[in-house]
Every structure is written in structure tokens, then in C-alpha cells.
């Protein structure tokens, strides 16, 4: 007899199958959850606690400050600049990288000679380490001898200071970030597109649908969960951008710092340059809330309730 707690939502005792399902679900989830709690949730929560103190690295729960850190953040021009830059960055990188990746995946999902080679080459930027990548891109963006200005000069465009002027600098890093991440999104889309049964597409073609219609009415709907995945992780990753910003602004040829200041960079500076651990923790919490809101919004609008 199933134990008394095994009641289903409809009232009455669950049948054996329901009970077995529940047992499986919990026993599968709980271990994973336990690991998550230890490796992620606990430390994150500790950091969250620090945000209510004027913590320093040495003495995190030193000086209770309540919500003062949060209040100070909203009058901190650097934080606001970071917020603005990061949002611009995230929107642009997500929109461009997802759409271009989808386009490429569609192109490559059909019969393509050397398709494997193309896929591999498109994936190369994803696995190339950031340090050499940054060096090359600093050259590409160089005002005098950079490749980008060189190509643009064929179209009569005057040389631009891509990493020099604040207005351009953020676009330069957006372009570079899109470049680095397209292959990743593309592979995910390829997985999704290839899992669509050929029979569906054939049936649509027999019905007389053209490519665009097949895309809109067959592929896109079936791709929705994957599409949602790519949108959500692109957004999360874009909001968390750090390494390329740090490296592109480092050194004597670096881009102007504040022009491309992003939230995680600001958090890093506050935590590790100025040792204001509590302040940085509060900033991390705000970043988290923003990304959480966006993610939940995307999931709700995209997926139907299971």
C-alpha cells in the first residue's frame, strides 16, 4: 500500500504508477540538487549576506549596513554607466548572435558539401583562448593599420578609431563578442534543426510550401524550446560579460575604461581593486535580479506551461 503522503493533486491516493514516478523524480533530482546547493547555492547565499554589510575581504560580516550598499549603488555613476553599457551590449549581442547563428544553422542543415568543415571553422572562435583573440582584434581595430579600416577603405570609408573613441569602442567589443559566440549558438541550432524529422519537412514540401513557409510553419515552432534556450543563455552570458572587456581595455593600447564598463567589470573592481566586498556583493545581487527577471519573462512568453 502506498504510504499516506502519496496523494495526488486531484485528491485521493495516487495509483502505483504515479507513486513510482514521484519516487523516481525525487531520487533523480535530489542528489543533483544537493550538489547544486553545496557548490552554488550556499556560496551564492553567503555572498548575498555580505551585501548587507560594509564587508571587506578579511572581515566579511564586519559592519552591518542594512540596505545602504544598495542605496549607494543607485547614486554611483560608475554603476549606472555599467548598467547602461551592459544592457546595450546584452541586447545587441543576443539579437545579432542568435539571428545570425540561426541563419547559418539553416544554411548548413541542408545538404552542404564540406558542411563538416564549415561547421568546424565556425566553431573555432568559440574554443580559441581569449588572450590571443584579444591581441588579434586589437590589431583588427587599429586606427592606422587595422584590417577593419583597411577593408572599409575599399568602400571609401575614412579610418575610424574603433577602440579609441568611447562611442565606437562599445560597438567594437559587441562585434568581437558576436564573432566569438556565433559558432556556439549555431551548433545548438544545428542539433535542434537536425532532430526535426525529415518526414515533416517532406510532407510540407509535398503540400507545396516554399522554403520560407517551411521555416515559419514547420521549423520555427518545433525549434521553439531550443530557440528559447539560446535566447536565455545568450542573455545571461551577455549580461555577465567580463574577460574580453578586461583584456581589450588593458595595457597602453587599451580602450577607454568607462566607455565599455560593464557590470561584472564594475563588480570585479569593487571587490578586488577596492576591496569593498559588501558593495560588490550588492551589485552582484542587482545583476542577478535583472537577469532573473529577463529570463523568467523570456521563459514565460516563449514556453507554454507544461
Amino acid at each position: 500500500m502506498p504510504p499516506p503522503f502519496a496523494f495526488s493533486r486531484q485528491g485521493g491516493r495516487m495509483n502505483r504508477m504515479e507513486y513510482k514516478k514521484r519516487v523516481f523524480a525525487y531520487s533523480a533530482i535530489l542528489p543533483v540538487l544537493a550538489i547544486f546547493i553545496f557548490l552554488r547555492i550556499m556560496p551564492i547565499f553567503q555572498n548575498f549576506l555580505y551585501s548587507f554589510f560594509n564587508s571587506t575581504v578579511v572581515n566579511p560580516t564586519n559592519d552591518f549596513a542594512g540596505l545602504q550598499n544598495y542605496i549607494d549603488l543607485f547614486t554611483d555613476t560608475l554603476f549606472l554607466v555599467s548598467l547602461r553599457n551592459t544592457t546595450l551590449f546584452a541586447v545587441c549581442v543576443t539579437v545579432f548572435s542568435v539571428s545570425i547563428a540561426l541563419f547559418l544553422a539553416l544554411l548548413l542543415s541542408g545538404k552542404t558539401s564540406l558542411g563538416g568543415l564549415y561547421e568546424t571553422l565556425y566553431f573555432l572562435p568559440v574554443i580559441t583562448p581569449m588572450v590571443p583573440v584579444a591581441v588579434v582584434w586589437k590589431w583588427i581595430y587599429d586606427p592606422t593599420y587595422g584590417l577593419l579600416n583597411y577593408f572599409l577603405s575599399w568602400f571609401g570609408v575614412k579610418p575610424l578609431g574603433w577602440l579609441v573613441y568611447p562611442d565606437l569602442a562599445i560597438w567594437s567589443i559587441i562585434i568581437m563578442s558576436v564573432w566569438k559566440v556565433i559558432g556556439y549558438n549555431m551548433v545548438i541550432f544545428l542539433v535542434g534543426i537536425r532532430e526535426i524529422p525529415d518526414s515533416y519537412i517532406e510532407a510540407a514540401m509535398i503540400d507545396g510550401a516554399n522554403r520560407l513557409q517551411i521555416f515559419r510553419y514547420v521549423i520555427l515552432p518545433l525549434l521553439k524550446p531550443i530557440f528559447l534556450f539560446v535566447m536565455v543563455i545568450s542573455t545571461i552570458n551577455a549580461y555577465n560579460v567580463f574577460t574580453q572587456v578586461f583584456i581589450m581595455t588593458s595595457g597602453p593600447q587599451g580602450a577607454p575604461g568607462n566607455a565599455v564598463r560593464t557590470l561584472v567589470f564594475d563588480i570585479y573592481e569593487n571587490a578586488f581593486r577596492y576591496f569593498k566586498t559588501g558593495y560588490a556583493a550588492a551589485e552582484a545581487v542587482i545583476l542577478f535580479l535583472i537577469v532573473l527577471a529577463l529570463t523568467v519573462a523570456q521563459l514565460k512568453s516563449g514556453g507554454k506551461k507544461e
Partner: protein
Amino acid sequence: MKAPSVIAAQVGKYTVLSIGVFIMVLPFIWMLSTSFKPSAEILTWPPEFIPRHFTMENFKTVFVTAPFVRFFFNSVLMAGVCTVSVLLTSSLAGYVFAKFKFPGRDFLFILVLATAMVPFETYMIPLYLSMVKLHVVNTFAGLVAPYLIMSYGIFFMRQNVIATIPDEIIDASRIDGASELTIFLKIIFPMLKGTAGALSIFAFMQTWAAFIWPLIITSSRDLWTMELGLGMFQYRFTVDLGPINAGSMLSILPVLAVFLLMRRNIVRGITMTGLKG
């Protein structure tokens, strides 16, 4: 004879693809060529693609400066263990989140996903302190710990299960008397080949590229990974471009190998042709 519009479309397609590839691959070509340039040549302006004096000096420097073979081995071990772990935990959890209803399910899922929204560097010190308490500082266990699970992995699996596995299959098997575990292992897992392939690549890649955590948790070079080794060429005010590019080339190879291996899985996922009788 193909219709002219079809040919035009094909030409268009390959042109676009090729221009794209050129942009994608350009920096990589420069990196490759720099690995083979002597120091005096690396700093030319404008930079040149073809080394004037081809040299293996940089590769030699890499292996002489530090035990890079050891680092390579450590990286492979670490990435291998973590990839397997991520695959197992993500498939199981992803499947459960996708196909089972239980109280708190959506909340737990958002919670798991939410942990990916917090930048690692903000909680790595509390995490390190936990590792200290467990006495796993400077051990392999401590090194791989944060990479054993991946929120995106669970999310990815969940989405793919939703997209490709119809409820009917599962219910049919249940009615047939199969246990939940059997269903997972014999029906679900095989259907996720493409997804598992992609996830392996991503998990491997992420673990391979790990830098700050391995740097903090290790206090002996025996445990160093390749990425940490490459950091030895990042001097205070300059980067030693020759060895760093040579080392980066070497470091890309395993990840590329995993990609090529797993690609076979991604090429054809298992298609469902309907319920069997």
C-alpha cells in the same frame, strides 16, 4: 539540370558561408602563424601572416618553461571527468524537469538556472572556504568540484527532451510495465544522442578553459592545467606572444578533437517515425 534559381541560391549560400568562414578564421590564422615566428618578427607593423623565418622555438619554450605535458594530462583528466559528470547529472535532471510534475518543480528549475546568473567570481571565495573546510584544497577533487554540474546542461537537456520526446512513448512504456529507470536508460538516453554530443562539447570546453578557480585551488604545479600554464607567459607588462600562441594552438587541439568526435552524433539525431505498434 538544376533550375537557374536553384543554382543562384546555391552560389549565394556558399558565398555567404565562405565570407563568414574567412571572418571567423582570420584571427586563428594569425595565431597559428605567430606560433612559428621568432620574437624579432612578431612585432612587425602591420602584422604579417606568413612567417619569414619559420621556427619551432616557441613550442620548445613552452615545453621547457614548465611541464606542459603534465598540464595537458591534468586538463584532459579534469575535462574528461567533468564532462561525464555533467552529462549524467544533466540528462537525469533535465529529463525529470521536462517530463515529471511534482510540487516545487518550476521553482527548483528556476533555482538551478538562477545559479548560472551569478558571476562565478563573486562567490568563488566562499566556495574556496568550503573547500578548505573539507580539506580538498590542492587536490583533484577540489579542482573539479565546481565543474561537476552545469545549470546550462540541465536546461539544455530539458529543452531538448521537450522538443524531441513525445509523452506517448514514455506512457506507452509505462503501460508496458517498464520501470522508470529502464525507461530513462533504454528509451530516453538513446534518443538524446545529438544533444548529449553537443553537451559533451560544451562541458568539455568550459572545463578546459577554466582559469581562476584552478589558479586559486592549487598550490602545487603538479595539479596545474594547460590554461594556467599558458598564464606563465603573461608577464607583468607584456605578453610573450610566441609561446602563448604556440601553447594556445596545442591547447585547442583536444577541444577540437572532442568537437569532431561528437559531431558525428550531432549530424543525425534519432528521428521518431511514430509509435511502434
